[in-house]
């Protein structure tokens, strides 16, 4: 069953704007990861945040994690047309070695 639920399901913004998407999960986790998928191809790892971390940055990406609310957010600043993709959160449960993916957010950045 799906661990993570993401919202919004789809997001359309202008180039230069920020994009924010959220992920909620149900069980205790070791870490939460964000991936990008272009045009239904393989996923690319973006960023990982561990359960004892609250915020992490990587380039134009900012991830937050609130373990009390079991939620995370991904912010893409100053978006570009090349950021158009689907973004998935994935959680590694504390009890196991598997990654469980959320439903994804489709982001369209209009030039």
């Amino acid at each position: 069953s799906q661990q993570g639920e993401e919202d919004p399901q789809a997001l359309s913004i202008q180039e230069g704007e920020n994009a924010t998407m959220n992920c909620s999960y149900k069980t205790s986790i070791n870490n939460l990861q964000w991936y990008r998928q272009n045009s239904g191809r393989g996923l690319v790892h973006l960023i990982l945040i561990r359960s004892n971390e609250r915020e992490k940055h990587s380039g134009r990406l900012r991830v937050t994690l609130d373990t009390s609310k079991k939620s995370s957010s991904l912010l893409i600043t100053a978006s570009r047309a090349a950021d158009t993709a689907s973004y998935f959160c994935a959680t590694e449960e504390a009890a196991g070695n598997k990654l469980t993916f959320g439903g994804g957010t489709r982001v369209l950045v209009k030039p």
Partner: protein
Amino acid sequence: SAVISQKPSRDICQRGTSLTIQCQVDSQVTMMFWYRQQPGQSLTLIATANQGSEATYESGFVIDKFPISRPNLTFSTLTVSNMSPEDSSIYLCSVRGPTNEKLFFGSGTQLSVL
């Protein structure tokens, strides 16, 4: 990092036939993971392939439908057997990176069953 070569990249198949998908990794890995992504949906783990032992299947997936081979530490195959249109999906193989945290993915196999 790990580089994964997955093939075929896409195929169109007739119902009742089978398709074998191959994944080759550029380094030795203990576990390989096979995912299915149905149209417009997220990824669902089919099974974990371990070298030298039977694959571990997730709930809702059975070996007769999705037999997996793992002959060595760099290669695995997933077969989609007796296909029906409901099997039309993207199938993805993946492995853990050196820190055993993040996943690296093959480019996926887009399967359409008529």
